[in-house]
């Protein structure tokens, strides 16, 4: 998820809250295909990813692109994106009710590795994430479009000069990012289930992860997410779990203050001259 957010954010520089809407939509799509129409995962997963990508592009095409053409800046885009998130959240609430929807029930098979217990799903998540990530890196470095994306995120002004079709690249980026969101959504749905409001906080957490990891550097997003998760888990051992939330965000805040460019961020936050 964080990675999906990161790639869109880095390239389009849109604080893409609507990403949460895409995620939730994907989750419900997965729920419908698997739990309701009882299709096999082999069918459901591609459909979900496709739908998510489609929705992502739809948003990009019908909202962001026109806004950019009207010369809107990040602020306007962010508000629009916020509006979209709210809109979708409530549409889902109307269609699917606010009850939690699950695709399976009961616990998962567990494995003991000495002290720590992991569920089969955790293993799957780990594998999937690594795979997705590897593929993504390969795509970004090896292919023409991939390089285009990187060029665009490095320097939006210069990109068109070297013959990159900006709008098309944005569309591509959104498609990929949304696809990643779908993957995250599937895993989440499999583990916990779907609720209309699931998107918002997840987006914010992944945004935090991106920042912690350092914007403009994809592996950062991944490591940032891991670091964020670790702090969340460990804080409970150190102090009363009531303070978990506060503690985590205090840490992130201090981190932001001390190292705004993130753990691995190369983009320095000097004021643009």
């Amino acid at each position: 998820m964080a990675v999906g957010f990161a790639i869109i954010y880095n390239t389009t520089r849109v604080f893409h809250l609507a990403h949460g809407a895409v995620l939730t939509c994907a989750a419900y799509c997965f729920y419908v295909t698997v739990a309701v129409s009882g299709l096999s995962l082999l069918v459901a997963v591609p459909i979900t990813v496709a739908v998510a990508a489609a929705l992502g592009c739809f948003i990009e095409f019908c909202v962001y692109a026109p806004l950019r053409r009207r010369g809107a800046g990040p602020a306007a885009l962010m508000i629009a994106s916020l509006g979209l998130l709210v809109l979708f959240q409530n549409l889902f609430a109307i269609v699917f009710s606010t009850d939690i929807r699950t695709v399976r029930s009961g616990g998962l098979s567990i494995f003991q590795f000495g002290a720590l217990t992991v569920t089969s799903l955790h293993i799957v998540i780990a594998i999937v994430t690594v795979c997705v990530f590897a593929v993504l890196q390969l795509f970004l470095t090896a292919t023409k479009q991939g390089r285009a994306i990187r060029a665009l995120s490095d320097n939006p002004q210069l990109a068109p000069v070297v013959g990159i079709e900006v709008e098309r690249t944005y569309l591509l980026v959104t498609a990929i990012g949304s696809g990643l969101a779908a993957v995250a959504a599937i895993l989440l749905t499999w583990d916990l289930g779907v609720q209309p409001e699931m998107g918002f906080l997840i987006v914010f957490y992944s945004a935090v992860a991106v920042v912690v990891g350092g914007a403009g550097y994809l592996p950062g997003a991944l490591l940032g997410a891991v670091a964020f998760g670790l702090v969340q888990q460990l804080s409970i051992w150190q102090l009363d779990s009531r303070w978990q939330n506060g503690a985590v965000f205090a840490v992130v805040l201090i981190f932001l203050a001390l190292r705004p460019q993130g753990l691995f961020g190369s983009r320095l936050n000097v004021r643009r001259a």
Partner: protein
Amino acid sequence: MKASLLLVLAGIAYGTAAAAQEPIKIGLSQIASGPYADYWNRQVNKPAMLAIDDRNAKGGVNGRKVVGILEDNKGDATTGAAVAHKLIEIDKVNAIFVAPTPPALAALPIAEAAGVPVLSTSTSPKIGQSPWGAVAQPPADRAGIGYAKFVAEHGLKHVASIAEDNDSVAISVNAFRSALAKSGIELVDAETYKAGSQDFTAQLTKIRAAQPELLLMQSASAASYGFILKQMAELDFRPKYIITYYQITDPQVRQVAGDLVNGVYFLQVPVDAEWNARVFKPRMGYDADGNGALAYDALAIYLDAYAKAGTDDPKTVRQTMLDYQGYKGAVGAWGYNGQAVTQLQFEVAQVAPGGGVTVIH
């Protein structure tokens, strides 16, 4: 803005016009939106409306029709205050039924000023302290004591709790702790989580390390019970006893946790099975849990008392309700016995395989 103002004015006109007629009006200031909306509709709003329909079926209150007016308070205090004003001043309701605690507490000063009884199924005892309040739900601290009683009876020594960070839950956990302290039992670990959380592994891992014989789960949403049970299994954490509140019987729990819910102990308001089978399920299509039953009774007993009082004076009606003996409804025969908070006691039950419930005592 002009348009909406006009609408408001139109509404006021409408409201006052309606007040001219004779029906008895009950204002329902309840949650109708947000993450808990659906549970709330199932187990509070609809049962309450059902009680009103049944009363009308019996010919209303001394021939007068009863009208229920539902307003969404979003479970939040600011909206709750606005809703209370709307119901009292525009709809001229004879009583307000409000369950969620923040809007209930925000509504109290307004209702007191206007002299309108506030019926509630909130687990917060504060509403009972008001001269206009009446609480049909056993307050949270009573639940805490109930849990402690269970612990003592089973001679357990090491117990832990995982509870949502909200007011009534906090109250019951504190009551639990102090009751345990009296009988020299130690609460080895008390973890909390933010409302709406779905990942409890961190808390559960910590509790597991303390190896309690019993785990108390307290939450405001049924779904989180499901997640806790699920993640306990996934952490291979299986305490001898798990005890919780009657929301465990909500279908959502089984939906999430599957059979893991079987055998879980819980405190329940004794819902009258016969009533549920005869009155509730046929029309609603699902079982009433404690909230549903109490929402029904809170209104039914008020309307009975209203008929008995034979006056419109709200204070008399409320007093008649509190002294009213021999009511029999969704939770069997009960009454306020003169108190502002019901004397209703919990019973311990256990979730049976396949969704049933076996009452222990």
